[in-house]
């Protein structure tokens, strides 16, 4: 069943026996990767499986400890990105790396500046950039500063930049994690065009639908080792998942129906930057899904409710009482907690221990006199870690050392310890692998069963449809529709219909 390297075939890229260790962690151990010309090659694996690490070895950001890489049949080793780019390999990086104070043109042509003598030729460069932007239907002028773009637009610039190198191999490390379905479709059309031209693409994503839609072959990694490769035609979803996690994942969206109680939290006529006149309510035990395009103002609404952005108008009610929230501290005290979509920036203090991260919002209740009760703190954190099946050597390790999924669990642990009444989850499974994802979904159901009201924002339609009791659809800062679970179960409403609402249709 394993996909065997065919002697006859020409490979653009061959990686053989690559190993790489960071200090004590063996990130890669003897992995293989074979990519053909004009093929979209998916790379699958759990968080921390070593996908990005291998890509960084190829692009020259890391040097492998062992193993050899052949590019277009010739031995290849890049000491830095410049050499890789010159050789014909470009990459879209997993972590969005914008240069906020550069213009789009400056960002795209960084290290490839147009010059006249020793001076820059800004005019020629802007013209060149505008041509490229136009080709990709990008709605901004090349002189726009990067910081004026939205997250998704920045990601599109990254994509355009990677393509603009005219490379023969393009690595895309989770390019769609901040794109919505329309933009994803745009990206796919770009990928198909590139394929036509014979460009090879390595495509990394945790979204299985995308893999099935666009990819030709798939290689699977697990814990830094190479598990195998398949032709996409020969692959099925469950098979790939069990290759990735080493076991069968029973149910991807394990929605457990539970009793829905009275209204816990109600929002009336809420307005602020990015959203307008939002009203909804959420009940005990309910999972309220919020769908919409990226940039439709979902996160903004929740940030405002949580006290991170100002509210210009509207009222909040918790258990029938009106409440005022100006700062996250007040929201937490009232029992409203929020997992931010941006884990790196708003989730964790990466250089502090897991324990400190989990205990941070609840320190006031873990005191003995003026001092902290570290015993109680440790016990609480351990309990919560165990409950969530947090995989870590010890809770004293830095949060930095955790894989993405476990980092996300740490954030969840932090909020569960605060014993909330309403839990807001903004993209709770973004960048989280299938295994961890199903665990997080499981947990969500458990919380709901305990009477918690859960609000979940997600850009992944299958997730929203699989998990929610009720779905609100956003369009341009307004709620444009409501879908009940029954409608989905009965097939009355499907993905297309929700999407249509998200695009502003009825």
């Amino acid at each position, binding site marked *: 069943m394993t996909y065997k390297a065919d002697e006859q075939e020409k490979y653009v890229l061959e990686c053989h026996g690559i190993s790489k260790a960071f200090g004590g962690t063996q990130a890669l151990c003897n992995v293989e990767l074979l990519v053909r010309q004009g093929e979209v090659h998916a790379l699958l694996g759990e968080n921390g499986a070593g996908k990005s690490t291998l890509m960084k070895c190829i692009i020259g950001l890391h040097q492998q400890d062992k193993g050899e890489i052949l590019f277009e049949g010739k031995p290849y080793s890049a000491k830095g990105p410049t050499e890789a780019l010159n050789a014909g390999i470009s990459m879209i990086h997993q972590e969005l790396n914008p240069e906020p104070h550069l213009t789009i043109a400056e960002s795209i042509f960084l290290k490839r500046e147009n010059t006249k003598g020793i001076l820059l030729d800004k005019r020629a460069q802007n013209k060149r950039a505008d041509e490229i932007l136009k080709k990709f239907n990008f709605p901004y002028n090349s002189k726009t500063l990067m910081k004026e773009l939205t997250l998704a637009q920045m990601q599109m610039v990254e994509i355009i930049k990677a393509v603009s190198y005219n490379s023969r191999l393009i690595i895309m490390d989770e390019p769609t994690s901040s794109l919505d379905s329309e933009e994803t479709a745009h990206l796919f059309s770009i990928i198909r065009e590139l394929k036509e031209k014979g460009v090879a693409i390595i495509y990394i994503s945790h979204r299985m639908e995308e893999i099935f839609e666009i990819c030709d072959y798939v290689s699977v990694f697990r814990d830094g080792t190479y598990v195998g490769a398949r032709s996409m035609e020969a692959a099925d979803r469950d098979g790939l998942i069990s290759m990735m996690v080493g076991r069968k994942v029973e149910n991807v969206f394990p929605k457990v129906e539970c009793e829905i109680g009275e209204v816990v939290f109600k929002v009336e006529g809420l307005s602020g930057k990015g959203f307008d006149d939002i009203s909804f309510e959420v009940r005990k035990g309910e999972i309220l899904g919020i769908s919409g395009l990226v940039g439709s103002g979902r996160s903004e609404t929740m940030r405002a409710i949580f006290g991170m952005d100002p509210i210009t108008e509207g009222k909040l009610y918790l258990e029938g009482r009106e409440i005022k929230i100006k700062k996250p501290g007040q929201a937490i005290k009232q029992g409203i907690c929020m997992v931010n979509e941006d884990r790196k920036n708003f989730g964790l203090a990466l250089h502090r221990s897991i324990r400190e991260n989990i205990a941070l919002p609840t320190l006031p209740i873990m005191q003995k006199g003026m*001092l902290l009760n570290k015993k109680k703190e440790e016990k609480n954190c351990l309990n919560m870690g165990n409950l969530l099946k947090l995989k870590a050597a010890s809770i004293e390790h830095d949060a930095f050392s955790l894989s993405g999924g476990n980092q996300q669990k740490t954030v969840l642990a932090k909020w569960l310890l605060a014993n909330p009444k309403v839990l807001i989850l903004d993209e709770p499974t973004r960048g989280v692998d299938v295994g961890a994802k199903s665990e997080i979904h499981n947990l969500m159901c458990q919380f709901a069963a305990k009477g918690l009201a859960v609000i979940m924002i997600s850009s992944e339609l299958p997730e929203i449809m699989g998990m929610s009791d009720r779905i609100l659809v956003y369009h341009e800062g307004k709620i444009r529709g409501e879908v009940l679970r029954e409608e989905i179960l009965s097939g009355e409403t499907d993905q297309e219909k929700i999407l249509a609402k998200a695009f502003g249709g009825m």
Partner: protein
Amino acid sequence: MAKEKEKILGMDGDKFRMFMGKYGIGVILVLMMVFISFMEPSFRSASNMINVATQVSINAMIAYGMCLAITTEGIDLSVGAQLALVSCILGQLISNKGWSIPLAILAAVLVSTLWGVINGLLISKFNMFPFVVTLSTQLIIRGLAQLISGGQAIPITDAAFKRIYSTKIAAVPFPILVLILVTVLMYLLLHWTKLGRYIFAVGDNMNAAIASGVSVIKTKTAVYAISGFLAGIAGVIFTAKTASAQSNIGIGYETDAVAACVLGGTSFAGGVATIPGVLMGIFIIGFIYNGMNLIGIDSYYQSMTKGAVIIGAVLLDMVMNKKTN
């Protein structure tokens, strides 16, 4: 996932590295003490150790405050000027206005704490860079000190006041007692209280701290207020030591404080610091001065030695913890 773990000194590799990351500076301190003792045996004497501990008490107060500031990704350049301001206020109140000593000290330390609060508010509320804010307030504070003293030295002849530096309780000079007390309090504050946790969280990832309900404004203001308060205490000890109130003292004292913090493993990236580390850093700086004086190193080489020790220690730490590019 973990394969066979390498063992170093009976600890497994990870732990050893964590230990060296945290206490590698202690090794440097010990090596330094051995080296100086070897060059100059009188260094080892109890009386010399008491000397050094008394001498470093001023820098220690400043360094602890600086450590908090650096931990929140800031810096407090105003401490040197705060020394001068406190000194001049003490001089005016005690010598010229005849205030009682406790009251004068209270007033002076209050003023320095207030300046700390101002620093903190400007930094946190107006989102200004700590370097810029404290550079500016430093100029203003020193100007105030000059204004108060009229640029003159005001002798403080009150014997009780001078005893603040020289009195001994059970053979231990008073400044050492203050040092011990402040060290314990700072240790508890940073490692055993809510505020300490918030300081680390804000320094490591301000946005995450905000999203966890931590008030950045309160935390940072507290940090600079404490720094101001400790600079005030340092100013009192300083003034008692020289028995004279002067507006030109403390210039460049932030340098030694920063050096002590850096040696003690405080990271300019924020979120990382330990009070025991800073204490060791303080003593390293103290031993550099004391050791060089005892060994009799030529004046010209003293500043070079200090620079080389700081850079060497940090470099060693970097290499040991594999943090280089």
